[in-house]
């Protein structure tokens, strides 16, 4: 470390030193218990206030209505567009939840307390992520039932559920990472979608193509590559978020 350039300021030195000090501190709570506790805290807060899940559900209902009215689809067109409607709605409803998840912590001042807690920073990340994932999955399954009824296409299918879970994992992982950055921005509500969209588009594309192939009962070589791409993207995004979250929240 002594071979660093002399242009670094003293302040940066102090910061780097404190960052190193953070790294060596020993968390006392077992890792997964910390993860569970944070996710459970978010769920309990949500269960009591119901402010997020209600708005997300209502938003979902409205989006599906807008789609069915705007597209005026016949039965055949519905078959090819339903996966797109499903994923666009999941992404936009999910954005509502993601932007609230860390913004509410920051506004209440509880984010600092969470960061001070003697747990690994990545445990905080995964706790937040599992909380967000659960919201997105609830929305996704309500949506699947809703679309099954309103579009008259059975979406409850094991493969489709697998695709939805894989897609949601990727979306919430990178969404949690980026929303923990966008909470510090001046206009955080507009910044999060801008940051998130390009990064999740590969996931959305894979999920939509895979879902459409499954819905049209195409052979496995038509949906398998998309499923693999989705799983690969999940692994990459989880690894990247695990490695980078420490740098986002250090202060």
């Amino acid at each position, binding site marked *: 470390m002594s071979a*660093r*350039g002399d*242009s*670094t300021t003293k302040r*940066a030195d102090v*910061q*780097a030193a404190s960052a190193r000090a953070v790294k060596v501190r020993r968390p006392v709570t077992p890792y997964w218990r910390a993860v569970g506790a944070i996710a459970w805290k978010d769920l309990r807060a949500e269960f009591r206030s119901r402010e997020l899940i209600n708005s997300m559900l209502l938003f979902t209902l409205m989006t599906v209505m807008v789609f069915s009215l705007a597209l005026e689809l016949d039965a055949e067109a519905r078959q090819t567009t339903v996966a797109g409607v499903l994923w666009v709605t999941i992404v936009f409803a999910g954005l509502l939840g993601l932007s609230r998840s860390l913004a509410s912590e920051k506004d209440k001042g509880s984010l600092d307390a969470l960061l001070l807690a003697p747990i690994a920073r990545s445990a905080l990340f995964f706790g937040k992520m599992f909380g967000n994932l659960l919201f997105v999955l609830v929305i996704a399954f309500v949506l699947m039932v809703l679309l099954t009824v309103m579009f008259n296409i059975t979406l409850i299918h094991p493969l489709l559920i697998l695709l939805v879970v894989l897609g949601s994992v990727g979306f919430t992982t*990178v969404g949690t*990472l*980026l929303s923990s*950055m*966008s909470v*510090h*921005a*001046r*206009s955080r509500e507009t*910044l999060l979608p*801008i*940051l998130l*969209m*390009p*990064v999740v*588009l*590969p996931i959305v*594309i894979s999920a939509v193509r895979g879902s459409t192939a499954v819905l049209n009962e195409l052979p496995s070589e038509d949906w398998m*590559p998309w499923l693999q791409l989705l799983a690969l*993207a999940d692994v*990459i*995004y989880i690894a*990247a978020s695990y490695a*980078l979250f420490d*740098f*986002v929240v*250090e*202060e």
Partner: protein
Amino acid sequence: MAYSDRRTRILTGLTYAALALFVVAMLMDFFYVGPERQQGEAHRIFYVHLGSFLGSFLAFGTAVVAGIAYLRSRDHKWDTLGLSAVEIGLGFATITIVTGMAWARPIWNTWWTWDPRLTSVAIMWLAYAAYMMLRTGIEDPERRRRFAAVYGIVAFASVLYTVIIIRVRPDTIHPVVAGPTQADPEGAFEVSGRIRDTLFFNLFTFAVITVVLVWHRIRLENLSERVARRKMEVLADL
């Protein structure tokens, strides 16, 4: 931290060299290489297309390296490098897209199609445009540098996606110059003879131009920082 005369002289020399290389590369594109058998004259734009993509690839790759180096060392110079690389890369990516469209009009008979390759390159462009938005959105300079480094690393996923997608998807019509492809692309051709000479010369030229432009952008950033500091000093004296 005045910019040394020696470094300025090296940069000026490199700039002239890059200009000379660019002129030679253009002459090769238009006169050395003949019209392609099937594509005719439209084929000439391909050298700029691939060259500018190489430029953006190098620049975005540099941004990843600079991001990792910044997060490890917290040295401002890495952040300047990352910012400069992303700006230059975004410019090159725009050139890649525009030249690609100009080529696609006569060859594919459309300016744009949602081919996997075209989609992924559009995503890549958006990701780095979002990087610029992130930088303007965060006020605290230390936090801005940190977040920019993180996003620069995450956004590189879109570059990898662009490179990989035409090699694994069978439904693309975009030609692949090097490496295997599963598809039957429209407008592919054999790289040999004069085409290969011109291609390699153009790639080399664009790599040099990328280095020169990034260097200029770093210099500009350092100079504007210096001007800002001098302004503060003058204001403090008043």
